[in-house]
């Protein structure tokens, strides 16, 4: 008994259905469109939402980049890339500017995305109001009525308790002045990149069975109070120990020998590109 898999794993009917949900998501920026999320050959929570979007969109001409936590080489990124190339045979790249589809977990690349590119973000928990309201039926009503007190209250509580907004990653954002969305666990540092992005940004949550989107040139505003502005992670006076980059998201490293802390670009392909330019020039 031997069976061949279809191009891009799914049967064509399934792909079409996911694309329909995606179109709806693009038409209603920030709105979580339910879809019949399929079980995938990788585990729920490992990027099945993003993977389904990518597989439903990918064509033979596409060039794919997959990153996890900023790295093209991370275990999960490699795994996803392997599955997609195995079932499509398309080209992969590490270079952000070369890719037509970029699937990512927890980061938006440092190199600005361009018109025509699609960024697919993997989402573990799509509901920004879940902390405030455990029931799905209730949060659905809250979105419908544009009642977002719960999201603000969460931030207010953080300020009361810790003196600052202490969302790590996944700081909620208002999309097109209508829907509050969970931007997936990207660091606050990447939130501003969602605003007026030239590329189409799609977000897929496989386990929670939701797709949502930030179409190109859409207003995305991180929630903040009048007297507590939204702040990105600070890497003041810090720079990448390899390429010297400043004002990028840095990984904190510990030197085994000296015990000293040093920093490196979290976006490894960006770092590499800078190193190569330096050595060429």
């Amino acid at each position, binding site marked *: 008994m031997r069976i061949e898999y279809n191009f891009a794993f799914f049967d064509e009917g399934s792909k079409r259905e996911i694309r329909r949900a995606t179109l709806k998501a693009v038409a209603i920026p920030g709105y979580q469109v339910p879809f019949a999320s399929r079980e995938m050959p990788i585990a*729920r929570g490992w990027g099945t939402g993003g993977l389904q979007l990518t597989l439903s969109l990918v064509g033979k001409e596409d060039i794919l980049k997959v990153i996890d936590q900023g790295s093209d080489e991370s275990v999960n990124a490699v795994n996803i890339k392997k599955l997609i190339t195995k079932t499509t045979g398309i080209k992969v790249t590490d270079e952000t500017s070369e890719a037509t589809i970029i699937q990512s977990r927890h980061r938006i690349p440092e190199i600005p995305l361009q018109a025509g590119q699609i960024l697919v973000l993997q989402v573990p928990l799509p509901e920004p109001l879940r902390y405030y309201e455990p029931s799905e039926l209730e949060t659905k009503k809250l979105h419908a009525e544009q009642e977002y007190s719960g999201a603000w209250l969460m931030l207010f509580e953080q300020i009361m308790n*810790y003196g600052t907004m202490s969302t790590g*990653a996944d700081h909620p954002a208002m999309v097109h002045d209508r829907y509050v969305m969970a931007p997936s666990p990207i660091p606050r*540092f990447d939130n501003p990149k969602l605003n007026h992005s030239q590329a189409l940004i799609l977000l897929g949550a496989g386990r929670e069975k939701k797709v949502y989107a930030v179409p190109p040139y859409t207003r995305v505003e991180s929630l903040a109070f009048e007297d507590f502005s939204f702040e990105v992670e600070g890497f003041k006076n810090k720079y990448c120990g390899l390429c010297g980059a400043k004002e990028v998201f840095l990984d904190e490293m510990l030197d085994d020998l000296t015990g000293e802390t040093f920093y490196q670009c979290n976006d490894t392909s960006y770092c*590499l590109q800078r190193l190569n330019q330096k050595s060429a020039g």
Partner: protein
Amino acid sequence: MGYVAVKGGIQAIEESIKRLKYERLKKGTVLKFQQIEGGMRCLIDQVMSESSLYSETLAAMAIKQAEGSPEEAVFLLRAYRSTLPRKHYSRTVQSEDMSVERRISSSFKEIPGGQILGTANDYTHRLIDFDLNEETEHDALEWLREYALERGVDNDQADLSNLPKTLDYLREEGLIPTFEINSDEPDDVTKESLHFPTSRSQRLQILTRGQTGAVTSLGYAALRSYGALHPTVGELRIGKLPIYVDSPFQDQKEDEDAYYIGEIKVTEVETLFPAEVQKGNGEKEIEFEIGYGICYGQNETKAIAMSILDRCLETANPEYPTHNEEFVLLHIDSVESTGFISHLKLPHYVTFQSKLDSVRKTKK
């Protein structure tokens, strides 16, 4: 010459995958599907039920590949299932048409058609049978021959494919409410995600493909304390059901045009729950309400637990988590729960760095 990325990741993964294969093969034995199909009936039934894919052969393959882990085997089958287009829906199956292999009722000693114990572990002592160590294929064939002879003498006369349902007896007496047949097209949870409040067809589908352990645990919780239901098994039957699909070419959906495409083995359970009802004359009466469970293969505990949860979710008592449909239905799926728990093994460097930044800010 430029810099290149460290390809450590790829290599490490490949080594890990090799290691997995090594563990499967290191003792030098290769399991045959036939051996799994022949000797691991219960595991196959469990895996088919949780995968909601009925194929013993594919289940056996998945079990081999998964080295016997049901969680992993279900995962493989579900992923495979995603590549299959749904081309037909079968005609409605009537469980009266079951060719019954086992049938018990704990409500009545004498049921029309009789109790049939069939295959079950229930009546064995759970003592490890050390003789199995010496069992040979020759012994097996010998035993089978004798068993066939023995059965030949005592030939059962009953028609096992037309046994009446035990509950019909109670229904005729007016002890359980009668309902019109509901012929609405069921919702298909594989085509459209759950929306709350759910329909009963959605609930039954999620329950039947639930992880055996999870369904059992929640059913047990409802039985033991949360709702303290104590049902009686009206009828538990196991056997094969014939499946037909309508002819795709005929507009008229006549019985005789339908195609027989095979049979599936299922466990079906109807449990009875006493409940108070208010009658027209102002008096209260006790009636029985029904919980329904059905699973692929022989999965008796799961099917009974399913029938309990079906009843819980119909009642929807807000006091108990076991009666809360979001609580039950969103947390019993094997692929979803094991996947999300295992994702904690993925690196969370960026999120952790971001949290670290917040934590440091709060310390200032």
